[in-house]
């Protein structure tokens, strides 16, 4: 028998690929549904779903950029140390000495691009009225994803530990002081108290929780690193799953309403 036959009829092959390659509609469905990666997509999409002038493909691009950011981010983690002594120099080393150190720039440009595509996606969804019932909940999930993306940008911005990073985060986090009730300089700061002692002060308010201290310090760098690399991506991945699930359940992408 031929080489192809020899491989595709072997025990090894058949244990991995249980069904032959798609050849008719029924077999195509079976192959999609029994594969963990392929079953995330619908078996077939409407023609309007790939109409670029209708969808702009911005949602898909945003997800693609999320994957790019994850992969480049993980690779950067091999050479970056989130400590006061090393952070700035490690970025310089990545840029100048590491092979394909352009990865650091790709990560940064990808982040900018992702923010742009997510706004364009939001704009497209609005223009096509794809937030109307039954899709209102998915719009809400999308807004949460927007917040996650902006938080990823905010936390990632501090990691190079240069002047731009430190001051941007100082200014940005100072706004947390003015949170109502939970910020020590906001309205109602003395509302939460036990007897005479206010629970909310500069060492315990929302800003303190965000920074891990009273000002931007090494503790903040570590905190933002964990948020940027683990906590927020996990939350975002969960929300992405919900977001995609809802698109399918609500009738597929870019269909008639």
């Amino acid at each position, binding site marked *: 028998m031929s080489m192809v036959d020899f491989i595709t009829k072997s025990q090894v092959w058949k244990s991995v690929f249980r069904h032959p390659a798609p050849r008719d509609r029924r077999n195509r469905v079976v192959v999609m549904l029994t594969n963990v990666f392929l079953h995330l997509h619908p078996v077939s999409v409407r023609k309007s779903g790939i109409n670029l002038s209708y969808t702009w493909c911005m949602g898909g691009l945003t997800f693609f950029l999320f994957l790019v950011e994850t992969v480049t981010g993980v690779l950067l983690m091999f050479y970056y140390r989130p400590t006061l002594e090393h952070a700035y120099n490690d970025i310089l080393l990545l840029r100048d000495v590491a092979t394909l150190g352009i990865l650091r720039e790709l990560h940064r440009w990808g982040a900018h691009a992702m923010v742009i595509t997510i706004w364009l996606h939001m704009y497209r969804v609005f223009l096509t009225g794809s937030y109307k019932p039954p899709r209102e909940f998915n719009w809400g999930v999308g807004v949460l994803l927007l917040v996650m993306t902006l938080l990823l940008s905010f936390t990632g911005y501090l990691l190079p530990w240069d002047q731009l990073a430190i001051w941007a985060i*100082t*200014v940005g986090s100072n706004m947390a002081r003015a949170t109502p009730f939970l910020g020590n300089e906001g309205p109602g700061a003395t509302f939460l108290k036990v007897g005479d002692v206010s629970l909310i002060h500069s060492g315990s308010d929302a800003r303190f929780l965000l920074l891990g*201290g009273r*000002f931007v310090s090494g*503790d903040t760098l570590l905190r933002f690193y964990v948020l940027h690399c683990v906590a927020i991506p996990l939350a975002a991945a969960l929300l992405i799953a919900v977001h995609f699930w809802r698109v399918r359940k609500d009738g597929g992408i870019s269909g008639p309403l």
Partner: protein
Amino acid sequence: MSEPNPNITGAPNPAPDQPAAVPAATAAPPKPAAPVAPRPAPKPTAKGKQRRFFLFALVGSWFAGGWTAFTASMGLMTLGTLRFLYPNVLSEPPSKIKVGFPDNYEEGKVVERYKDQNTWVVRKDAEIYALSTTCTHLGCTPNWLEREQKFKCPCHGSGYYISGINFEGPAPRPLERWAISVGDDGQMVVDKSRSFHYERGEWSNPDSFIKV
């Protein structure tokens, strides 16, 4: 079978020396077999009935008790996680700094030696005071411009007089003053854990300046 059998009908065998009242008591309605709606014992007041029911609804059955325990543990874990994220140990520099003797300070001069510790020490018009180096706009560090006799913030252009009062740019209020006092050895001590705001009238507080 050498031991006495339990009665197949379910009623327990009365012991031979027990009084006759026992069979009558044990002939009372049996306990419910399945843990579905446990009947609360009759209470004298209606309110007592309500209170008893609430407790039973939470812990009366395995089902209810299990969910109550689960919810309580989840709640405690959430609170514990939040508390965990508040650091107990901070690596911050001490808030009290010694800034030398009053006689070493020249009239009308801003001393920048302690700028990296967030403090300017100024002697002006028979007073020595300590200004915070945090711009009241968004938190950057202004620069003292000797020739123009003003503090100028590089971020958004806020300007302050030598007294700390804001006069240009987006700063909404004057620079804050730290508490300053003369220590036992005659050296001045700046205490950054206490700040004084001009716009609250706090600069008249004697802890915010040293008279010379």
